[in-house]
C-alpha cells in the first residue's frame, strides 16, 4: 500500500535543542496510527511539520504525494486538530461555518451530531469554553472535515471519560463509513490502544518503535514469582526490566513465548502477563538507556517482522 505520509531523515533543530532528530517513518493510507511518546518527545513538532505549520531544518516530508508546506493541493486535503489551537474571536458556530467552507467533504450532519453529543452550545464564545469543551470543538472539526489525512494532537485534553468514549466511538464509526488516514497522538495509551492499527513511538526526537499494533501483542511479557524461579526462567532471554521485592521478582522479557515456555512457567509457579501497549511504550522509551540494552535487539525490528 502506498504511504499517505512519508518522512525521511527529518530533523528540526531549535536554538538550544533538537526537537526531531533524523526521523524516518511511513504511515500507510487508510489506517489509524497512534503517535506515542512522553511530553517533549517531539510529537507535536512532527505533526506541525506534517501539517505545514512548521518547517524542517533538514530531511524530506511527503504527505499525499507532495511536500505539505505551502502546497494548496495537499493542505486542502488535510486537517490538523491540536490541543493548544488558537482561535479568533469566534463563537462555536463561526468556527464550524468557516471550517465547512474549506473542506469539500464537510459533513454538516456529523458536526451537528457531535456538538449535541458533547453538549457544545453553538452560540458560546470559544474563549469562554472550558479546556474540555475546546477539545470537543477541535474533535468536531477534525471528524466532520472528513479530510483524507486527519492529524489529531492530544485531541481530548480535559475531556471527561464519557466524552472520550464518545470520541472513540464516533471516530471508529465515521472511519468505517469514510476511511482515511488518521494519525493521533495521545498520553492515554491503554484507553486508545484498541483504535490503533499501527503505533509509532518517539522519544527525545527519535523514533524508537514503529510497528503494527497486532504485532506488538505478546512481544514482551512480565514474569513474576519467586526470585529463584524467575531467574531460572529468564536465564538466556533478553530482559528489559528487573524488579525485586523481598523473595519475589518481576522481570520483563522480550520475545514471544511459545507453548513449551508457557508450560514451563506454569510448572515453576510463575505468573505471566503480557505487557500492555502503555507499558511497552514506557519500556520502549527507556530502551536506549536500559542496562540490558546492549544485547537486546531494537524493538522496532521485532515489531516489524511480526
Amino acid at each position, binding site marked *: 500500500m502506498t504511504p499517505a505520509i512519508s518522512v525521511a531523515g527529518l530533523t528540526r533543530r531549535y536554538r538550544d535543542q533538537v526537537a526531531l532528530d533524523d526521523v524516518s517513518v511511513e504511515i500507510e493510507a487508510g489506517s489509524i496510527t497512534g503517535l506515542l511518546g512522553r511530553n517533549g518527545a517531539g510529537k507535536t513538532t512532527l505533526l506541525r511539520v506534517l501539517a505545514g505549520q*512548521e518547517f524542517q531544518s533538514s530531511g524530506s516530508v511527503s504527505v499525499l504525494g507532495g511536500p505539505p508546506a505551502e502546497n494548496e493541493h495537499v*493542505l486542502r486535503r488535510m486537517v490538523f486538530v491540536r490541543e493548544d489551537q488558537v482561535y479568533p474571536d469566534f463563537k462555536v458556530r463561526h468556527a464550524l461555518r468557516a*471550517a465547512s467552507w474549506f473542506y469539500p467533504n464537510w459533513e454538516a450532519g456529523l458536526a451537528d451530531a457531535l456538538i449535541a453529543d458533547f453538549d457544545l452550545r453553538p452560540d458560546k464564545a470559544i474563549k469562554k469554553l472550558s479546556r474540555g469543551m475546546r477539545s470537543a470543538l477541535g474533535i468536531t472539526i477534525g471528524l466532520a472535515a472528513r479530510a483524507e489525512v486527519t492529524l489529531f494532537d492530544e485531541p481530548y485534553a480535559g475531556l471527561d471519560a464519557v466524552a472520550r468514549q464518545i470520541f472513540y466511538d464516533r471516530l471508529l464509526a465515521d472511519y468505517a463509513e469514510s476511511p482515511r488516514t488518521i494519525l493521533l497522538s495521545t498520553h492515554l495509551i491503554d484507553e486508545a490502544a484498541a483504535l490503533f492499527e499501527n503505533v509509532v513511538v518517539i522519544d527525545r526526537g527519535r523514533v524508537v518503535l514503529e510497528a503494527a499494533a497486532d504485532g506488538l501483542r505478546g512481544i514482551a511479557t512480565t514474569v513474576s514469582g519467586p526470585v529463584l524461579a524467575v531467574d531460572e526462567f529468564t536465564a538466556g532471554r533478553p530482559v528489559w526490566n528487573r524488579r525485586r521485592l523481598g523473595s519475589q521478582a518481576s522481570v520483563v522479557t522480550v520475545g514471544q513465548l511459545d507453548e513449551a515456555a508457557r508450560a514451563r512457567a506454569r510448572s515453576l509457579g510463575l505468573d505471566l502477563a503480557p505487557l500492555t501497549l502503555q507499558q511497552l511504550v514506557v519500556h520502549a522509551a527507556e530502551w536506549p538507556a536500559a542496562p540490558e540494552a546492549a544485547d537486546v535487539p531494537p524493538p522496532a525490528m521485532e515489531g516489524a517482522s511480526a
Partner: protein
Amino acid sequence: MSTLVKVARYHLVQPFQYLGLTWMVLAFTFAVNEIIFAVAPVSHHTVTTAHGLVSVASTDGRYTGALCSFFILFLVLGVTSIGRSLPFGLALGMSRRSYYMGTALLAVVLACADGLALTALQAIERATDGWGVHMHFFRVAYLLNGPWYLTWLTSFVGLALLFVYGMWFGIVHRRWNLFGTLTFIAAQVTVLLGAVLVITWAHGWTGVGHFFTGLTVAGLTGLLAALAVALLAGGHATIRRATV
C-alpha cells in the same frame, strides 16, 4: 469559490469588527464633534459692503481632524487580521500565501467600500453646510477636500495602506514577538533618519520642499499607492516563513 474569496469570507464570518466597530467608533467621534460645534461660538469678522459694515461668520477653518480615528482603526484591523486568525486559518488548511492574499483582498474591498461611504458622507456634509454647524468633519484640509472621485480614491488608498501596514506589523509580531516588533519600528526610524541625513548632506532640503509644495493630492495618492504596494510585498516576504 476561489480560495482568496473564501479567506476574505473567513474574516467576515464574525463581521462585527470589520463592519460594525469602525462605524460605531466613527459615529461616536462624530457625535462628540457635532455637540462641541453646536455649542462653540462661531467667530465673526466684519466686511465693508454697500450697506456699510456687515458681520460675517468665518467658517473656513472649522476642521476637526477627528476623521483620523477611522483611519487608525484600519491599522488596528490590519494587526488583528493576523493575530489569532492566522493560526486557525492554517489549521483549516489555508496556505500562508492564500491567507495573506485573501486578507489583502479583504483590505482592498473594505477600503474601497468604506472610502465610498466616507465620500457620500462628505457630500452630505457639503450639502448641509457642515451638518448645520459649519463643521468640516469629512472634509480634511488639502487631503480630502477636492472632487468626490478624488476623495474616494485618496481615502481608499489611505485605508488600504494602513490595513496592509497593520498586517505587516501583525506578522512581525507573530514571528518575533514584542522585541521583534520594536526592532521593526526601530528599523523604520533608522531608514527615515538615514534619508534625513543624506538629504542634509546633499543640501537637498530646498528640492524636497519644492517637491512637496508642488505635490497635488492626486500625486500624493499615487505615492501612497506605491508605498502600499511596497508594504504588501514586505508583509508577503515576512509571512512566508511564519510558523504557528
